[in-house]
């Protein structure tokens, strides 16, 4: 039984290739219909995100499946050379891959949290359309568990890699908390809105929107539940604000050093944090020279984000250790899937052998009392039990060792203990009875 993943992501293929097989958020019925044609595939589940198209599956013959799926992707993408962008992993590699995906270390934005939800969705979808069974359900659940472990035991998911988050972090280094703080948003730029959303989420009390077109300011203020301000009243806005976010499209400075200086004269011991994410810049950089004024532009914020990214990179080794631990646990579980039926087969086989022999000899023991016959039969069962005790113990030990050679050992054991002739004759009997 092989666990396989085939697919492509941002590392293996550029966006123009990835978009040929992008199915994120789309109906999977056509895909289901196509994959169900492959009778070799016992279970499957798909994981589609904006950067990833992956199909996880369970099959007996991995080489045959590989051939068929490469062809399938080529037809799907209508691209003759599509297969060169695909990766194809089996068993341990597959397990490690999905665990890495769920942990966020395989994502384009290292350690991002969204992927964990996407893995959960993929599992639910597969369960809904009934394409995943025992093995893939367990694989995906363990991947979700590994992803959670990575995020709680390491700092891989800490500190969002966004400019808005960086602005919030810096603001808390000045104000301790954003509660009861007022934010003045200059302009209606998308990035500015995003930063304001972060600030509002962090507790900022009021968002004041100032825009050259007053109506636009009113519209945007409604979104944040704040106030609108015309540019003519900017000086008053500056006096009240704790944080200013510059995001206009103006080709010149909207806030000069003089503007800020005169506002600060009226509030010398109240710090002012300015975030200028506009290009060209909205705020004169000389403003930073003023006492109690802290100005950060887009490059400064990007540097902060870059630093967070570096911190996350340092966590990769810890996450990989967690993945290795969880991978080992999963493979042990998978091996037990092979040994449990074998143990049952061996037990059944020897029991059949015993009962056949007992039936043969039973008539010869008719002179014995029923109690004596029963005692002998119990003894035969006990002998079988004792004969089986050590092999069963060994089999369980083998299943705990994650080693490919064990598969050969299991096959040898199967041949040693299972009496195919008896099994066949039993099956024939069963057929006859039915």
């Amino acid at each position, binding site marked *: 039984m092989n666990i396989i993943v085939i697919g492509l992501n941002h590392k293996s293929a550029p966006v123009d290739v990835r978009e040929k097989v992008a199915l994120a958020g789309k109906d999977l019925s056509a895909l289901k219909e196509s994959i169900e044609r492959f009778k070799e595939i016992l279970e499957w589940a798909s994981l589609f995100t904006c950067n990833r198209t992956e199909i996880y599956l369970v099959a007996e013959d991995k080489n045959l499946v590989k051939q068929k799926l490469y062809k399938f992707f080529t037809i799907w993408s209508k691209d003759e050379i599509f297969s060169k962008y695909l990766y194809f992993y089996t068993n341990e590699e597959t397990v490690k891959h999905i665990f890495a995906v769920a942990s966020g270390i395989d994502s384009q934005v290292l350690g991002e949290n969204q992927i964990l939800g996407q893995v959960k969705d993929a599992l639910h979808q597969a369960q809904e359309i009934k394409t995943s069974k025992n093995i893939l359900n367990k694989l995906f659940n363990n991947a979700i568990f590994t992803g959670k472990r990575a995020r709680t035991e390491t700092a891989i998911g800490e500190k969002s890699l966004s400019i808005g988050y960086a602005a919030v972090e*810096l603001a*808390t*280094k*000045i*104000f*301790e908390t954003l509660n009861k703080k007022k934010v003045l948003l200059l302009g209606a730029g998308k990035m500015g809105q995003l930063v304001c959303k972060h600030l509002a989420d962090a507790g900022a009390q009021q968002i004041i929107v100032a825009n050259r077109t007053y109506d636009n300011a009113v519209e945007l203020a409604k979104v944040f539940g704040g106030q609108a301000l015309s540019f003519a009243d900017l000086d008053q806005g500056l006096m009240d604000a704790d944080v200013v976010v510059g995001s206009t499209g103006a080709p010149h400075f909207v806030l000069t050093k003089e503007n800020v200086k005169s506002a600060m004269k009226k*509030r*010398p*011991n*109240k*710090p002012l944090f300015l975030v200028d994410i506009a290009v060209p810049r909205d705020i004169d950089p000389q403003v*930073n020279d003023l*006492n*109690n004024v*802290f100005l*950060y532009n887009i490059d*400064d914020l990007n*540097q*902060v984000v870059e*630093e967070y990214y570096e911190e996350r990179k*340092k966590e990769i080794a810890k996450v990989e250790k967690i993945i290795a631990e969880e991978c080992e646990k999963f493979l042990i579980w998978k091996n037990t899937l092979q040994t449990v039926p074998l143990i049952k087969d061996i037990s059944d086989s020897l029991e059949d052998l015993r009962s056949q022999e007992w039936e043969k000899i039973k008539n010869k023991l008719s002179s014995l009392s029923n109690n004596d016959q029963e005692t002998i039969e119990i003894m035969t069962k006990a002998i079988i039990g004792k004969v089986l005790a050590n092999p069963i113990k060994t089999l369980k030990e083998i299943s705990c060792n994650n080693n490919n050679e064990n598969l050969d050992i299991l096959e040898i054991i199967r041949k040693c203990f299972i009496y195919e002739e008896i099994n066949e004759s039993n099956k024939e009997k069963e057929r006859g009875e039915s």
Partner: protein
Amino acid sequence: MQVGYEIVSIIFFILSFVAFPLFLTIFTHKQNLAKVGNIVLFIAFILNIFSIYLRIKLIGNDVLFDFSGTVLISIGILLLAYLIIDNIFKISVMGAFVAPVCFLTSGYLLFINVSGGKLLPHFKNYLISIHVIVILLSFIFFVLAFFSSLLYLTQEKLLKTKRKGNLLKKLPSLKSMETFSLHTVSLGLVLLTLGLISGGIVSRKLPGSFNILSPKGIFAILTWLLYASYVILHFIKSFPTKKNAYLLVAGFIIIIITYFGTSHGLKLTP
């Protein structure tokens, strides 16, 4: 007894010396070492109490009027204040200031022989004891405010210059340090006022022992004025916070001059 006192003092010196680099690791990724530093300082605090006890055994109840005794008590109060404050405000980074103060002062007592004379009988007065304790307590609060102002100025510089790194992340916010300084200075100021009043009452009762125009008296008044102006300027909100932080640095310098510079102990002996 003397040997025991010296051994305890040496162990205290070593512990506070060891604690210092542990606190410096706060600026790296190994934050747990700061917790070890706190444990080391806690043990040092216990030893400090023991050394005060030994000092009392050595020189009797005059420990409040003995330079070594007052330094030991000051260190003890500083350590206790730090441990309580860290527990409440989680400012372990302040340990990086407290630990060196401990090993420098204990080293000073160990390696520089400081001997006080015998105290005149009429100085053995409960009001003088209160005066000394209250003044020591106020100085400790001012020292803590000084540490906080140093942290404030460092953080302000880092934010202004947009420096990256652990230091920015590990230092508390400007607002929290400002609040901390205000609280400690306010408390220190109340205690200093009480100390000066009790000192004034004592000096009236004792013949010619204290002169307001003596260097110690002038510096004590200067200290009071400086810290009072800090609190007033803070509340009238017309003075930049950074300049207020510099006031605390100046205050600390005056305290050091008052405490160490003007005399070694009260020198109340004839």
